[in-house]
């Protein structure tokens, strides 16, 4: 019997519910139902490649997401089973012992192990903002990531720099793919990432030996292939024209659309509305707050202000909203051409007066000439 079966048995989880979980995982990954046995076999395989989880400049939110269990489900047991060869935050070993186990894994499974990275990597000042065991995060990532079979960047920080990379980015924080441009990096952005997507990604890799299909930002399409806005349960209110105008107003209590409160759902790709959080209980928009676009490249800066639809432009003394700049453009145009028109009118006035004068003189001359002729 495999180690994993024993683990399931020790938690009184039947094979039936394990297979049920595998088929729902298959649904998440959008693979045919016939793949379920293959998925189960891949998870049960004792020769699976190990996982090294590294944490750099982060809030540990992704580890929290990983550990959020309040009752062990099959999914968590899978992660327990496959992920924890080296995880700085949760492993029991410490110091030299921990380093030694990491190196042993790296040696033995060179080019095969799965490297998971949490947190951004501070590349500024030669990387001194984050060092572990005397080595900078940049060097550790190059070594551990460089020798991995595949790298999974969990959370927005390790994917794209995230919060630490927000303006003015004092530590020069960057994402994993910025430092390892030639490695396959699967980005699972989100603040934090949703652990079910991590399970799905790992299982996909174990089952097929390849990363899942990814979009242009290196995100698996099964999890980031649809816009929040297009799967949101408030979408009907959006198209109907029913919007929350103030926190706690009638519309807010009715669960209307949060577009006017700065919801970034129309610009964010993630499966939050369908997968949800905390065992599928809820997700931010369901709870009554707009999406903040945490899983998009460029988050934090491009998604702010949080309660405004479009970004402000810095550098005009105070930050200027898009509408103010637009009004200034139209106003400037009106002022320029209004002034031009006023000058033109004034000049015409002079010309018209002169022309009138000339005409009057001409008429006078004609009259004079006529009366001369009459004489």
């Amino acid at each position, binding site marked *: 019997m495999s180690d994993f079966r024993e683990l399931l048995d020790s938690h009184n989880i039947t094979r039936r519910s394990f297979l049920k979980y595998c088929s729902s995982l298959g649904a998440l990954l959008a693979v045919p139902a016939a793949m379920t046995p293959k998925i189960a076999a891949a998870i049960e395989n004792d020769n699976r490649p190990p996982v090294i989880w590294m944490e750099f400049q982060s809030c540990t939110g992704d580890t929290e997401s990983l550990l959020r269990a309040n009752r062990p489900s099959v999914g968590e047991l899978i992660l327990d089973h496959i992920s924890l060869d080296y995880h700085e935050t949760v492993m029991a070993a410490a110091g030299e012992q921990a380093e030694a186990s990491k190196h042993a894994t790296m040696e033995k499974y060179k080019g095969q192990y799965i490297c998971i990275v949490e947190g951004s990597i501070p590349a500024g000042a030669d990387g001194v903002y984050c060092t572990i065991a005397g080595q900078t995060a940049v060097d550790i990532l190059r070594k551990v990531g460089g020798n991995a079979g595949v790298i999974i960047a969990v959370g927005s920080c390790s994917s794209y720099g995230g919060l630490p990379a927000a303006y003015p980015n004092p530590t020069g924080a960057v994402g994993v793919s910025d430092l390892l441009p030639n490695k396959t990096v699967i980005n699972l952005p989100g603040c934090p990432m949703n652990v079910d997507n991590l399970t799905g990604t790992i299982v996909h890799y174990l089952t097929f030996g390849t990363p899942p299909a990814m*979009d*242009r930002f290196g995100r698996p*399409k099964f999890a980031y*292939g*649809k*816009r929040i806005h*297009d799967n949101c349960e408030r979408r009907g209110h*959006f*198209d*109907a*024209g*029913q*919007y929350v105008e103030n926190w706690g107003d009638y519309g807010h209590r009715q669960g209307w659309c949060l*577009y*006017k409160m700065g919801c*970034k759902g*129309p*610009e964010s*790709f993630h499966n939050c509305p369908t997968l949800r959080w905390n065992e599928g209980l809820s997700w931010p928009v369901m709870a009554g707050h707009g999406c903040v*676009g945490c899983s*998009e*490249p*460029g988050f934090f800066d*491009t*998604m702010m202000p949080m309660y405004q*639809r*479009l*970004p402000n432009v810095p550098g005009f003394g105070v930050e200027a909203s*898009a*509408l103010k*700049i*637009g*009004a200034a*453009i*139209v106003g*400037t*145009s*009106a002022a*320029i*051409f209004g002034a*031009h*028109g006023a*000058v*033109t009118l004034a*000049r015409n006035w002079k010309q018209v007066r002169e022309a009138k004068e000339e005409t009057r003189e001409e008429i006078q001359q004609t009259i004079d000439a006529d009366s001369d002729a009459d004489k």
Partner: protein
Amino acid sequence: MAESTNATLTTPEQPAECAARRFLYIWEGPVRIIHWVNFFCIIVLSVTGYFIHDPFMSAAQHPYIMGHMRHIHYVAGVLFAVSILARLYWFLGGSYYASWRAIPNPFNRKDRETFWAYFRFYIFLGQKTPHLLGHNPVAFCAYTLLFLLFFLQILTGFALWAQADPGSTLYAVTGWVFGLVSNQWVRWFHFMVMFLVAGFVINHLYSVVLFDFKTKSGEISSIFSGWKPDHRD
């Protein structure tokens, strides 16, 4: 000179002449139709676009209002794109005054002088402007910038639309935009271009009235009828 009312034979030397003497056929049907389709589309796109930015009416006024506004915006957007493409076609293969052949040549002394004459006129430093049948060269520069904005607006518009289905062909064609700037800034840009176009419209209306009056060149009536008075002596 051959007397001809056949529009397609129009060349700078031999524009078709009108029954009313000394009028020349300058803007062919397609140019005028495209102009007014653009006029109509820009108004509709700006009104519906502004509504999308800030839905100032709610379901209380009209059920499904945002859905309809967006629908109208997309239909007008497609029409606008077709119209701009048609103009591009006419620019490549159309009649003399509407095509690339009438682009002022910066290496030609006469063209340069014409440009500066008009430029001086705009900034009140000159009174005399040579009579022209097509665009004046300063206006031509403005139209070039304007059409650049149109292209960018159409590109960003379709890219925003494509976000509803990143697996679509439309996204494959336009999605590269989001690799250059994040989608929030694409939206910001799409919003800002509306104001740039509005600023242009103010300029455009003012300038055509100014030149219609100053140079008696039939600027305004020509975009309805196609005919301009011939002042060449």
